[in-house]
């Protein structure tokens, strides 16, 4: 303790700073392994040359990105034209994920509101009921959805039985089937954050709005919604982002022509037919898009926060 500053047992400032870095090490390792390393590998692979049976040759090239955006003819010797195939697949994914998110919002918001307004004791039961199906593997759930939605499936049988329709509604292998599948896959991610926000909401505010001559609808729109908006935005992000890259629902419910980014990427890494650098490049483009969307949301959120 000689020269230790006299405060027995005390740790000097510089030792403390050093210790702090050591204590943070585990989180850095985890972040490095599960976030930075995989993304880094993808980023590097996207700039490498493809090996025909899958895998890569360690030779730098922009071919993967070139192939994504430009069409140079069958033998690659024609003047480059814009390649619309993949851009359209991306566009379709943006739209499909958007529709699924909207569907999840329209159904998830009232559900969350319903749960949050139940007596406090029974709320956990409702939350539990919402999450039960999600203990089953996503693949199984998606296949069941296919069974439910097909032309001779229970849903159509039921609708015909009630007399609402005469002929089965054809849903399978359409955009709607994909949207329903995506919506179903990620619904809890919409319900739970909104539920958390509505539960914290002070319903005296709704009473105050009604007292000040607002109808239920106006009170909802002008008082409740602004208060729970962070939960709604979180729910939308949590549904939209995984929907954008999903491949199970589009594959199983959308059929061959309703391709989405997720399926495109998945295909590049499956079996021997794939193209790893191309899949990696598509992943990087998807990642960039998601980052941009999140950034826009974050900025919007920050602005809303500044406004109160």
């Amino acid at each position, binding site marked *: 303790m000689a020269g230790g500053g006299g405060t027995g047992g005390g740790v000097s400032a510089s030792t403390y700073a050093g210790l702090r870095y050591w204590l943070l090490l585990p989180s850095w390792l985890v972040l490095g392994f599960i976030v930075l390393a995989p993304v880094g590998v993808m980023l590097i692979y996207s700039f490498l040359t493809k090996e025909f049976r899958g895998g890569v040759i360690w030779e730098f090239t922009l071919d993967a990105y070139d192939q994504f955006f430009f069409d140079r003819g069958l033998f690659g010797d024609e003047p480059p034209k814009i390649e619309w195939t993949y851009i359209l697949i991306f566009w379709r994914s943006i739209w499909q994920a958007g529709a699924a998110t909207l569907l999840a919002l329209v159904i998830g918001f009232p559900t969350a509101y319903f749960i949050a307004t139940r007596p406090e004791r029974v709320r956990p039961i409702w939350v539990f009921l919402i999450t039960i199906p999600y203990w089953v593997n996503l693949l199984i759930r998606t296949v069941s959805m296919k069974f439910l939605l097909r032309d001779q499936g229970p849903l159509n049988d039921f609708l015909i039985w009630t007399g609402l329709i005469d002929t089965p509604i054809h849903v399978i292998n359409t955009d709607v089937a994909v949207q329903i599948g995506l919506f179903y896959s990620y619904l809890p991610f919409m319900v739970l954050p909104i539920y958390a926000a509505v539960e914290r909401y*002070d319903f005296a505010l709704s*009473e105050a*709005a009604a*007292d000040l001559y607002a*109808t239920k609808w106006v009170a909802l729109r*002008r008082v409740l919604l602004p208060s729970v908006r962070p939960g709604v935005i979180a729910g939308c992000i949590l549904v939209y982002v995984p929907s954008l890259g999903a491949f199970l629902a589009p594959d199983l419910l959308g059929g061959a022509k309703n391709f989405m980014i997720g399926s495109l990427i998945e295909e590049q890494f499956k079996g021997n037919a794939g193209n790893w650098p191309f899949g990696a490049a598509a992943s990087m483009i998807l990642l960039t898009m998601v980052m941009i969307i999140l950034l826009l949301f974050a900025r919007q959120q920050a602005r809303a926060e500044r406004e*109160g």
Partner: protein
Amino acid sequence: MQDNATYAVDIRSAVKRFGSFTALDRVSLSIRDNEFFTLLGPSGCGKTTLLRLIAGFEDVTEGEILLFGEEIETLPPHQRPVNTVFQNYALFPKMTVEENVMFGVEMRGARRSEARRRAGEMLELVRLERFAGRRPAQLSGGQQQRVALARALAPQPKVLLLDEPLSALDLKLRKAMQMELKSIQRETGITFIFVTHDQEEALTMSDRIAVMSEGRVQQMGEAREIYERPHNMFVADFIGDTNLLDVTVDRIEDGRAICHIGGGHVLTCDAVDGIGAGAQVHMSIRPERLVLSDEALGAESLAGTVVDNVFIGTDIQSMIQLENGPRFAVRTSNSDRGARRIFAPGAQAFVNAEPGAARLLID
């Protein structure tokens, strides 16, 4: 004096049950126009439930509520021309102070410019015009309270309901707001229905008070009347400090009840309907209406020993133990000390009740 149509709020045997619990039991109240009316009672007495029935947040189980002669008990809250100042203010957190005050005016169909003008007026009334652009969270408790008041007054309600609006403020601010509320009520001429558990607040502010307990109105009247002539045990005990004595009525003579108060001591007071000879009831005497003397001033001077003196600001309260009898609290105003003597503990003294001070209570 008034026919029914001119009562601001007329509640006719309103009953409110929550499951098997009866929150309000056949409550009838007629509140006049331009009146500062207070519902006073301990927590759980049903006063807030009654206010919520008038506002429309709860439905009556039985009974009628009339607003200026019109039945309103089936209307939803947004169709009732009454506004509420909530206990915790319930200001809209995402709106500015001005937008909060404009809200009700706009909802009643006014144009934005008109609503803004009206909000300006109201904020001026509560002296918050400089804070129009702030968010509620950026204001102090007292300021939020005033915004809540401005917001509720802005749409010009026929009746303003105030649910313990001052309970969250500290004592000094509360006193100041009491005066301000009272003067705003006079200025605007709007009927105020004010809910509180604070009897002092009720006594200072109200034109009339309804004292409530266990879902019933125990007594209704002007502040002075309720304080000086409490009907029953609950009211006497709840409003102000009092000496409550167990007494036995010996006989009734010429409208006066002669009562034994224990230890051979006797006090006489006005007889009350329903209390006859032999009844064992309670008697209430306010401490400030008792006077100490060093010799008997009359037949009913009660001899006792001073036990203790406590300084309580404006008054000194002395405890006097009667021989074999009850113990009395006697208050002597500090400004009277020239005229009235304070006796040291241990001294002999006589307790004298002012005429009309002793009241018999129905249980």
